[in-house]
């Protein structure tokens, strides 16, 4: 289990890769000139190659500044409309950057390429979901109504999945990108965010292992419904929402089954204990006296 998952996730998590932005490279500038400056003595420097290697390792990548972050967000936002044409790829990012008047080289800010676009879209959708959930909870509070967990969760998942529909033509590609090993951790973090938000606003107060079972089961429902969605051809995807309802019912009945099994277990073990006590008392039962065969 990754350490960064499960907790309420950071708002955005686009990390600055080794390429970094133009501004971050200036901090390496000094080192670079040292290395290539003395051409004639280059062969001598090769003897000190261990020092060169350790110098590289010591140079730490500077943290992404707020300005870099905002720039990246703007580029990704502008790239989304190009997804239909180019898919979730660097090409789309380049098109987006150019539409903002930036040079195409800006794609160097996104070392993970198309995956960055997928994550950006996923995280923005998660934010939208959160504000939807917050609003719903506020509305219910104002009307002084209690949250009905089942319908609430159904609505939440339906809302979140509907955000995919505008991009559904290219969503299978996005799902494939998310399953790549280098993207798996971030994808899992994003999914955890969805289920944690839904449960939190639905009023979940668990503080033990139920925390995990609830989120795990909801993640399974969400994922399976997402897969169903991308091949659904029904009007307004009503088949998908029926599928979702059935999956949620499965979870509820699994919970009932678990509870029944537990009760059965208690009854059976009490019964077994009682039986053992009874058996242990058998030696204390007095033997019936033999009738005297000589009596007539």
């Amino acid at each position: 289990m990754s350490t960064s998952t499960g907790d309420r996730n950071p708002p955005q998590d686009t990390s600055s890769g080794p390429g970094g932005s133009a501004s971050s490279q200036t901090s390496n500038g000094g080192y670079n000139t040292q290395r290539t400056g003395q051409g004639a003595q280059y062969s001598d420097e090769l003897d000190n190659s261990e020092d060169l290697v350790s110098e590289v390792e010591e140079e730490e990548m500077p943290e992404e500044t707020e300005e870099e972050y905002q720039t990246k967000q703007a580029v990704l936002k502008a790239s989304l409309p190009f997804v239909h044409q180019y898919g979730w790829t660097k090409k789309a990012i380049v098109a987006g950057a150019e539409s903002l008047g930036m040079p195409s080289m800006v794609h160097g800010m996104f070392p993970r390429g198309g995956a960055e676009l997928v994550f950006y879209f996923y995280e923005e959708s998660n934010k939208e979901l959160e504000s939807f959930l917050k609003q719903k909870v506020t509305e219910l509070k104002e009307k002084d109504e209690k949250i009905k967990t089942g319908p609430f969760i159904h609505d939440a998942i339906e809302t979140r999945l509907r955000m995919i529909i505008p991009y559904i033509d290219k969503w299978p590609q996005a799902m494939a990108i998310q399953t790549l090993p280098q993207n798996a951790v971030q994808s899992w973090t994003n999914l955890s965010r969805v289920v944690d938000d839904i449960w939190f606003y639905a009023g979940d107060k668990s503080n033990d292992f139920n925390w995990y079972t609830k989120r795990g089961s909801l993640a399974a429902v969400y994922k399976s419904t997402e897969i169903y969605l991308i091949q659904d051809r029904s009007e307004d995807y009503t088949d998908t929402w029926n599928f979702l309802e059935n999956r949620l019912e499965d979870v509820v009945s699994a919970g009932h089954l678990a509870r029944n099994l537990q009760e059965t277990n208690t009854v059976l073990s009490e019964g077994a204990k009682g039986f053992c006590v009874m058996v242990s008392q058998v030696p204390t039962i007095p033997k019936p006296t033999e009738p005297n065969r000589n009596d007539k």
Partner: protein
Amino acid sequence: ISQRAKDEKTRKLLSRIIRVDQAGELGADRIYAGQIAVLGNTPVGPIIQEMKEQEQEHLETFNKLIVEKRVRPTALLPLWNIAGFALGAGTALLGKEGAMACTVAVESVIGEHYNSQIRDLMEDDPEKHKELIKKLSKFRDDELHHHDTGLEHDAEKAPMYDALSQVIKVGCIGAIWLSERI
């Protein structure tokens, strides 16, 4: 360093602290439960019972904080549940001195741990974390009181006291490390 990154750092610190403290209090509660299972009917029973009730209070506080601050509880809770009870019962089978030795070892690790958490919180933002720092300080004092109680009741007379104490301390430190991350 941007405000966003700073908030993220604080959030991670708080999550870690609350997660490991909840696990620790559950473990401590279960250790005392194990000890009571063996030594409940002896003269030292009521003393252990009192300590257990204080741990229960601590546990309830952290259970509330987990929900309030939206912290993920450690996935190892079921493990600490069983391991704590086993440790308590196991050391209690060595006699009352064994149980007390276990208490002393565990409480000394926990006391140090609370102190380092308080230090981390003060370093991060003493104003923002004032409430939490107060709670942790009180709990630390309770744990040290338990530690002293254990010593008063002949912990050091336990069989293989030094070895027992070391093993338990190392185990606790390992459990703390794991619960902070998993």
